[in-house]
């Protein structure tokens, strides 16, 4: 049922939209990353419950593995990064949409950044010192690759100057650091912090040095969820954004931090609250806005690399209408 005009009422449990008449289950595919904070917080704080939405999390080892499930309608929402596979899926007629922010860089403490081996600290001082080194990146023709290319550009190097090592798993990068089979890696939190505490690697500069406005992860929606169940998806988005706002309040302004960290330890594999206070914060936009231009640049890079088969209408892949509507309901976050 498409209810175009949603009634906003202070009396509803959420303080805005009325709950759904029928309890509706929304399946979220996650990979256990910290960038899913918005989902976790909204779930734990009852924002979804307020709308009578029941959330089911399902974990994938890798965000790409979620795509077929998303396209087949097996999951409604997924957290993902921009990859060639995403656009390829669209080219194959799979109508997956990018709907909101789920991770970008935040000031000088990026959650997705380069690390180098501990014993190379003296040797590698600048990006250009990476010349001839073995650098692990977790995928080709994905945002990882894009960040890597941006870094090379920034360092004035070409791909032939370094040794690209594809390691599909971030955990493997720690292991490979341990036995010195790689020199540097594009690593992600909380493994960056953890590897530092175990003296495996050290942070090297910050990704914002060369890609300050990079869009790393996005909320993806299944076509049927966005286009057919608008009453559900609108409420879902509203609840998600409330979760994201709590996250921002906690990590940026230290409001309710302990509660949020509690939630994070519950939903991610990082169980040590102490470490959570140290990790590089994932930037999550409280209004759900993305660096669309950057996503487009990423897309163009994949296309230039011939990784995209078929024609893709880029603009069609991005659908921020649901986010915008939700903002209308809950208001903009300004702080």
């Amino acid at each position, binding site marked *: 049922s498409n209810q175009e005009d949603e009634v906003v009422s202070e009396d509803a449990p959420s303080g805005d939209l009325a709950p759904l008449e029928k309890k509706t289950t929304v*399946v979220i*595919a996650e*990979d*256990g990353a910290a960038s899913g904070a918005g989902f976790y917080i909204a779930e734990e704080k009852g924002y979804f419950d307020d709308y009578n939405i029941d959330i089911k*999390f*399902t*974990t*994938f*080892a*890798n965000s790409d*593995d979620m795509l*077929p*499930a998303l396209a*087949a309608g*097996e*999951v409604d929402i997924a957290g993902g990064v921009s990859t060639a596979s995403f656009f390829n899926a669209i080219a194959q007629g799979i109508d997956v949409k990018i709907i909101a922010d789920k991770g970008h860089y935040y000031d000088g403490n990026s959650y997705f950044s380069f690390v180098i081996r501990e014993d190379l600290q003296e040797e590698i001082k600048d990006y250009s010192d990476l010349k001839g080194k073995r650098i692990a990146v977790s995928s080709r023709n994905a945002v990882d690759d894009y960040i890597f290319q941006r870094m090379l550009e920034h360092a004035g190097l070409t791909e032939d100057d370094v040794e690209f090592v594809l390691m599909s*798993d*971030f*955990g493997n990068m*720690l*292991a490979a650091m*341990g036995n010195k089979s790689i020199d540097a890696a594009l690593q992600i939190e*909380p*493994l960056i912090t*953890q*590897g530092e505490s*175990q003296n*495996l690697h050290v942070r090297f500069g910050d990704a914002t040095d060369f890609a300050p406005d990079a869009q790393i992860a996005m909320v993806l929606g299944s076509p049927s969820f966005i286009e057919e169940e608008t009453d559900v998806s609108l409420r879902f988005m509203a609840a998600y954004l409330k979760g994201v706002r709590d996250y921002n309040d906690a990590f940026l302004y230290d409001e309710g931090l302990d509660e949020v960290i509690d939630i994070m330890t519950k939903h*991610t*594999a*990082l*169980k040590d609250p102490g470490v959570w206070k140290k990790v590089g914060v994932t930037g999550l936009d409280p209004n759900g806005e993305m660096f669309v231009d950057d996503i487009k640049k990423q897309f163009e890079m994949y296309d230039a690399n011939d990784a995209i088969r078929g024609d893709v209408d880029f603009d069609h892949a991005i659908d921020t209408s649901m986010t915008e509507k939700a903002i209308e309901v809950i208001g903009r976050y300004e702080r």
Partner: protein
Amino acid sequence: MKEHERDSVIDPLQMEKQEWKKRQLQHRFKQLLTITSPIFIVLLWELLSRTGLIDARFFPPPTEIVGTFWAMGMSGELFHHVGISLYRIFAGFLLGVIPAIGIGLLMGLYSPIRHFLSPLIMALMPIPTLALLPIIIILFGVGEVSKVVTIAGSVFFPVVINTVAGVINIDRIYLDVAKNYGADSKNFFFKIALPGSLPVMLEGVQMGQAIALLTIVAAEMMGANSGIGYLIWTSYKAFLIKEMFVGLVLISFFGYLFSLMLRGLQTKLLPWR
């Protein structure tokens, strides 16, 4: 008195008794060895890890793993993972084994069916479950079904192949006996084909069990949020090496347990071997 003693020394029975005792002792010693080796390895590991000769970040001392194990057990988390994985393994195992036996018997008994299906089986068998995960998700979604199907699929092949081999290799003479004594096809199936192929079939089931365990990690890589495979996987992703080792030890333990159980079942089902 003295002569009696002398006698008993060269008495053949006494001599063999002594020999036997010596053999018993050797046997005990071997049993001891069997227990020693894991203990030895664990101690060595502990020592190397504590002294830093191996990297304790990657190979934490066994005592610490046991501690983590204990903590996870106390919190009840462990039982949850184990329970759900056992359910998946068990359901997937049954879902793989039962049709495999049925199809295997049919293939063994009717050569046109065998000729028709065997190239398909030979072609599908070498494809790793890991590579089939995408297709399984497409076909079966991300719920329990897809995990159970993943395991079932990997169990299916060794069982079907061994069942066919079991039927084909039944000694011809038993077929002749059945024919000579006028067995109808139902009796032929239940009295000859099924029991005759059972030993080889059960070898396949044993293999299938091993493979079910090997597959659980792959199956729980996608769309899972509990299970031993999930535990290993997410622990590793978060670089929680101790938790990962707990998962590995669990898999190893259940592998050992299941194969013992199946051996027991085998002797139960095959009293005539």
